[in-house]
């Protein structure tokens, strides 16, 4: 796999791009997991507030996802450098 990456770009940028994407995925996974867990807990405690909680959870998840996508874009820039 390493050889494949090196073949792709000729130097180490492929590895850097992969690391950027992977570390961003770790962070976003932790963030979205926490949002989802809290939203589920909140809905279980207060089922009548489920709609409001769901809407807010989706928007908050989008914020976290946006940060992860910044990292993904930087990974792409590295790869296509």
């Amino acid at each position: 796999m390493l050889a494949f990456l090196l073949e792709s770009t000729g130097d180490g940028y492929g590895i850097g791009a992969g690391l950027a994407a992977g570390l961003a995925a770790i962070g976003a996974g932790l963030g979205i997991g926490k949002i989802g867990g809290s939203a589920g807990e909140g809905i279980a405690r207060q089922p009548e507030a489920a709609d409001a909680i769901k809407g807010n959870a989706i928007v908050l998840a989008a914020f976290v996802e946006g940060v992860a996508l910044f990292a993904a874009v930087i990974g792409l820039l590295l790869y296509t450098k």
Partner: protein
Amino acid sequence: MTAIRTLLLAFVAVLGSFAAAVGAQEPPVAQVPAAAQDHAGHDEGRTLVLPNDVFFMRQFAHSVPHQIWPAHSDADPAHGPDLFAFYNVNLFQWVAFGLLLVLFVPVLGSFGKKNPSWLSRVLRGWCMWIRDEMVYPVMGKEEGRAWAPYFIFLFFFIAAMNCIGLVPSIPQLHFETGTATGTPFVTVALALVTLFLMLGMGIKHNGFIGFFKGLLPHGLPLPLIPLMFVIELVSLVVKPFALTIRLFANMLAGHLVIASAIGLVFLFTKMIGGGPLSYLTAIPSAGLAVFIFIIESFVTLLQAYIFTLLSINFVYASMHQDH
């Protein structure tokens, strides 16, 4: 009403066939190395002999808009960009706009009628939902009434552009589609509208001095004020920038994931050296691509929703700065 709808559909079809005609002349393909030219007879051979990075680059060449009118003038680097050049993203913005006309002009006509068609009722309900669930909870009824039409248009315009991007291209039939929102140029324009609304409406409501004074939190110690002012100015610009990148990167990432899932077929075929076994690798790869495609069709609407909701929040927050 049927006549109008048919006319508008014809308009979209003409635009689409125009896209097909000009898309055929100038495919946005990266440089194919000379070794690959020998195998250009059949497509499978050509894709398989491409180096990995060229193959990958071709997958997101469509995130760079290419000029379709006037044709080929960007071949000359000394000439510079044309002022009135027509790019493929312009075309698909017009297609999205035409699609909206097809969908919503009958809705306009359906208000006096007793039995509107099911499509008109769905779209009316959808507009009502945007107004009642997105605009009114943030802005309130009095102010939201004036703002609802713009945000309804914003939602459906982004959603239409995203959905057009999901239609697969068929290069063999010279039918090419493009995601207008998959390029940063279109999303930055949409976000700039939000930025100008934030600035303009904020200044209109609070006065020029009051707007910039209102950016700062109350009760700040004096030495912190210059620092906080700079930070708040930066955050004012970063908000639309984040809108830009979020929409663009979501659309681009979805297309790249689908392209990579399909690209796995070629990668595996290369690894096992061809042969009948390579047909088996297509089954999980195509299944993965279909799965991602289903997720993407949800993401198209979700991103339109998020862009609209955040725009509503930003514009309202700059009009009423009470933090």
